């Protein structure tokens, strides 16, 4: 079983590896367990974004600010850029209704300290020459940044291992028992057991099944997102792009902005972002299909249809791959971070939906402070696993 441990982290995606690194840096002896290979979960099937503009004012937006600052410090500590880039972002506006709602939303975001503005068609076209004529305006923020998930995970792994963090892959957790001495015993597929006073459930979309092993309830639902990857091409315009339509239908339930049948059925919205490898990730869908990670003809066609609607010139660009990831979604759109009531030493750090890359450092730091008993300025009640009351598995 190896040397005694202080924390067993279940789940080796970006949240698990980041948490393992911060805990190890705080002097804890940590083992990170993953049932799959490197980045087999959502962390390996998503875009690179540290995105502000899609966030409603509130804790998610605040935590994204803090997370960006942490990334900047980690880049210095690790002496590794991890392909961090600050290209900025534009949310594309197609009609008057969207413009009215986005004007209001931008005002709110600015009051929350987000440096975002509305720009007209001419400026939008200057920043993104491939834009379709029907785009009437856009938001623009230099805050939206990105970092390469694979570089980040490899850096957390390398730095953590250097400090003694263990990483065990391809060996899933099959049971977690509570021992008499108040330790937890985590039993893996090959029979090895890992014992420690603290267990962190960082299993993303699979966090519910880990929680049930200790009788806890984590109301996370997998939400499939299909993504289509282009071939490597020189940069298309300055910034990454999203469409206002989807955001508006979320912000204003009764708004006159309507989605097409395809957009409703697939939960389609535009996310057009440049990867570290020079390819463009085009997405994405939002489908409740359980743990099925396959791609579909409807999904791929839907994404291409949507993208060409906003960027017609992309028609001559080739696609090399389609993939899907499972976003871990919570009922209130906020992550689950904290110790479970009545289960001392059992923590959950999961449920980041589409923001796992952006929020990994701040999640890991707060989780590590919780486990180590360090003082935390902000209250984390909003994120507590116990906020769902007597949640039952409906």
């Amino acid at each position: 079983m190896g040397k005694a441990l202080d924390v067993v982290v279940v789940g080796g995606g970006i949240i698990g590896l980041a948490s393992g690194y911060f805990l190890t840096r705080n002097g804890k002896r940590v083992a990170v367990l993953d049932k799959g290979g490197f980045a087999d979960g959502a962390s390996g099937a998503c875009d690179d974004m540290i995105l502000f503009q899609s966030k409603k004012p509130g804790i998610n937006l605040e935590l994204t600010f803090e997370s960006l600052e942490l990334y900047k410090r980690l880049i210095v500590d690790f002496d590794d850029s991890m392909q961090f880039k600050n290209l900025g972002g534009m949310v594309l506006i197609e009609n008057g209704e969207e413009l009215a709602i986005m004007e209001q939303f931008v005002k709110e975001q600015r009051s929350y300290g987000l440096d975002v503005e509305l720009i007209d068609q001419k400026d939008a076209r200057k920043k993104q020459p491939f834009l379709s004529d029907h785009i009437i305006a856009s938001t623009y923020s230099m805050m939206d940044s990105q970092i390469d998930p694979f570089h980040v995970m490899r850096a957390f792994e390398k730095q953590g291992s250097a400090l003694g963090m263990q990483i065990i892959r391809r060996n899933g957790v099959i049971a977690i028992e509570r021992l008499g001495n108040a330790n937890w015993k985590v039993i893996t597929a090959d029979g090895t057991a890992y014992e420690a006073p603290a267990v962190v459930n960082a299993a993303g979309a699979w966090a519910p099944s880990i929680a049930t092993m200790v009788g806890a309830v984590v109301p996370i639902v997998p939400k499939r997102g299909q993504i289509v990857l282009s071939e490597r091409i020189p940069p298309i315009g300055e910034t990454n792009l999203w469409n206002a339509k989807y955001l508006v239908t979320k912000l204003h339930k009764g708004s006159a902005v309507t989605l097409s049948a395809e957009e409703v059925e697939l939960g389609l919205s535009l996310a057009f972002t440049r990867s570290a490898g020079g390819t463009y990730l085009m997405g994405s869908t939002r489908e409740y299909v359980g743990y099925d990670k396959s791609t579909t003809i409807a999904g791929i066609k839907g994404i291409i249809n949507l993208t060409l609607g906003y960027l017609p010139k992309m028609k001559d660009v080739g696609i090399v791959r389609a993939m899907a990831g499972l976003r871990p979604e919570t009922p209130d759109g906020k992550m689950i971070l904290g110790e479970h009531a009545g289960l001392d030493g059992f923590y959950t750090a999961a449920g980041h939906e589409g923001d796992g890359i952006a929020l990994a450092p701040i999640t890991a730091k707060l989780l590590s402070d919780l486990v180590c008993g360090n003082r935390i300025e902000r209250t984390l009640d909003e994120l507590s696993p116990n906020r769902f009351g007597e949640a039952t598995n409906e």
Partner: protein
Amino acid sequence: MSDETENRDMLICRCEEVTLGEILDAIDDGFVTVKDVKRATRAGMGLCQGRSCSRTIARIISQRTGKPLDEVLPKSYRYPVRPEKMSAALSEESEDESDS
């Protein structure tokens, strides 16, 4: 395959220009399957999606770690299996062109 250690600068992945050295370093860092090495180095993420290099990478991992080949493979198999222009993925075939 000439002696491995000497040719660290030799390319293994033609599309993404990933060298033998980068792949060996990734293996030594614990990335010991074709999928792991792809995500750690981009080898296999290029235009041909690993068709040219996955088998070679599997052999290098197997030689370096002693793992049998079938533990190191398979790579991931995602569609489309050929690079297709976005316009081609979309444009319907008109009625007359295809028969019944």
